[in-house]
């Protein structure tokens, strides 16, 4: 051993001292006369081996035996002692025992060091464990997500953080008295229950479609993810509840917007298709108008001539009759009944010719008025003239069946394309005529109301059912059956009236009849 072994001899007699010195000449030896002073030296010097006389051994050894770190004690001059390292009759054979005791002491010291070191390490570990746990608690508590520590087996909530309190609206003290399934409700499949059972095996939980019902009311959508950890000796599931209310709202908004967009695209497409159909039909109407105007123009001169000639013929017949009755006529011709009959027949049919050609002229004039190719621009026009022309043209739809009541008011001329308005009038009049089965009446009223002129066309027809009433201006809607109606008439009428900055209203009662009211502004504001 590098240092001198420290021996403490406790002996009332001085003779033992010399004997020990001889047995261990290199050791540092101290002697105490009684147990009292021995205790003091023991505390001061920490001896490696104790050498005790029997009285000291009897007095001190039981006490020392309680300290496992106490040095080995050799009793000199006595019989066996229960707590002694060795018992020798005297100091004569001390040397080998002392050597053994010192080796024992060395081992004991080493053991002590190791124990102390391990204790030191252990206490350090305890400290850092405590710190880690504190950090973990702080982390969980300050987390922005709601976190529950839940007993894996019983699902009892053991811990809950601030966010969890906030979401559930319950203080931690109340949360920890509940089961997780009391706080989080499951929506849809698989249920939280099913997922939990799987998580008990796999150690990780993922559960979407859950919701927390806060104590204060409302509903918060959450997604729960959990992982198994060990906490305070329990197997627990650390459940993190991610508030997905905002995300779901955004998703729903996005979905809604996408649907809205899709709907708008569809609607726009439908509108385009409609206006395309309307445009095509308008083109057709314009082409037909041009054709009609052309034909009317070409018919003008021949029909004018026929009318003139019918008149001339009538005049000539009057003259002929005068001549036949006159002096210059031979007797055989004068008052000849056969001749007079022929003259009368020609007179009669000439009158009919005049009536017929007058009517043709009226129709041709109406056709020309109706088409009005000469009026490409907007100009002030007499709506009554347009209505009358149109009435002449739809005469065949009405005659002998429908009486027309004209209630024309005092209205000013309005700016318009009269040919287009005539198309609208024609459409309404024909519709009215079709609506009337058998006998009926058609009333055309015009009147002024403020800055607007109103034209009402009412019939005593079948009327329109409420469900059809909302669709009559839709492109392609017809109740006349395929091949009869195009379903474009009212759609085009509405477009024309809208182009004239006016609007069409309709009132109808099934069984009573329908009245269309067209409103047109007296003047077009420059701003519009």
């Amino acid at each position, binding site marked *: 051993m590098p240092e001198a072994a420290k021996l403490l001899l406790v002996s009332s007699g001085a003779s033992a001292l010399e004997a020990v010195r001889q047995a261990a000449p290199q050791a540092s030896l101290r002697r105490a006369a009684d147990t009292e002073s021995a205790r003091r030296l023991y505390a001061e010097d920490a001896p490696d081996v104790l050498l005790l006389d029997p009285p000291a051994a009897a007095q001190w050894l039981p006490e020392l035996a309680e300290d496992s770190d106490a040095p080995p004690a050799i009793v000199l001059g006595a019989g066996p002692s229960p707590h002694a390292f060795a018992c020798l009759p005297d100091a004569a054979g001390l040397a080998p025992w002392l050597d053994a005791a010192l080796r024992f002491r060395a081992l004991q010291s080493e053991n002590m060091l190791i124990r102390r070191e391990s204790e030191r390490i252990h206490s350090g570990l305890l400290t850092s464990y405590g710190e880690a746990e504190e950090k973990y608690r702080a982390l969980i508590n300050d987390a922005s997500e709601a976190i529950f520590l839940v007993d894996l087996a019983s699902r009892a909530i053991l811990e809950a953080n601030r966010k969890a309190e906030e979401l559930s609206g319950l203080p931690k003290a109340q949360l920890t008295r509940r089961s997780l399934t009391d706080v989080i409700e499951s929506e849809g499949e698989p249920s939280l229950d099913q997922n939990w059972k799987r998580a008990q095996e796999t150690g990780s939980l993922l559960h979407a479609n859950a919701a927390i019902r806060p104590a204060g009311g409302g509903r918060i959508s959450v997604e729960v993810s959990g992982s198994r950890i060990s906490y305070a000796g329990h197997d627990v599931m650390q459940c993190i509840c991610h508030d997905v209310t905002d995300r779901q709202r955004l998703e729903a908004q996005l979905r809604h917007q996408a649907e809205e967009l899709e709907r708008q695209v569809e609607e726009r497409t439908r509108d385009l298709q409609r206006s395309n159909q309307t445009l095509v039909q308008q083109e057709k109407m314009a082409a037909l108008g041009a054709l009609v105007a052309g034909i009317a123009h070409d018919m003008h*001169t021949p029909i004018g001539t026929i009318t003139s000639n019918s008149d001339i013929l009538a005049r000539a017949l009057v003259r002929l009759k005068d001549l036949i009755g006159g002096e210059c006529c031979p007797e055989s011709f004068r008052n000849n009944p056969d001749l007079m009959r022929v003259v009368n027949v020609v007179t009669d049919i000439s009158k009919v010719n005049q009536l017929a050609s007058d009517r043709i002229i009226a129709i041709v004039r109406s056709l020309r008025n109706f088409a009005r190719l000469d009026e490409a621009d907007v100009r002030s026009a007499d709506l009554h003239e347009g209505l009358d022309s149109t009435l002449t043209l739809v005469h065949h739809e009405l005659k002998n069946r429908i009486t027309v009541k004209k209630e024309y008011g005092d209205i000013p001329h309005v700016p318009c394309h009269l040919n287009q308005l005539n198309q609208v009038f024609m459409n309404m009049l024909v519709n009215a005529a079709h609506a009337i089965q058998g006998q009926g009446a058609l009333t055309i009223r015009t009147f002024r109301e403020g800055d607007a002129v109103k034209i009402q066309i009412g019939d005593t027809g079948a009327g329109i059912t409420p469900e059809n009433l909302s669709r009559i201006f839709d492109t392609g809607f017809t109740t006349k059956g395929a091949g009869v109606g195009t379903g474009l008439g009212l759609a085009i009428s509405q477009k024309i009236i809208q182009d004239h900055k006016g609007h069409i209203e309709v009132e109808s009662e099934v069984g009573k009849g329908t009245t269309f009211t067209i409103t047109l502004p007296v003047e077009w504001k420059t701003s519009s």
Partner: protein
Amino acid sequence: MSGGFERTPVILVVDDEEMVLISIKAFLMLETDYEVITCNGPAAGLEMVKQQTVDLVISDYLMPEMDGISFLMQVKTLQPHTIRILLTGYADKENAIKAINEVGLYQYIEKPWQNADLALVIHNGLEKRFLIERLQAKIREVQAAQDSLQDIQDQIIKAFM
């Protein structure tokens, strides 16, 4: 029936439609004793106006060679006192109204015409024509009288000088 005119009035009708010419001529021949000349185009019409005195011209508006207004303008240059009437379709009404001022139209008649209207317009036109003629004759007479008075006055002055 000369309608009381001092001589048989001469009427020229110009239209590219033969049927219009025949109809109007037939009517006027039946109802009046006017001399009616018809031409189926403005060029032929102008030839006629160059050759003889025409009291009244009825012309169609829309014709292939030139329109009725240009034709009547030339008639006015050739015979300023001829009464000019335009026969026009509905579509040309506005042009016709403008022409009344520009060309000094007496009247325009819309196709298809009423024979009674036509007869009245022609008769009134001729009356104006003959009134002007008489007025001019009177003016000439007065002028002649004034001239002879002037001569006499001159002679008297000479005699006393």
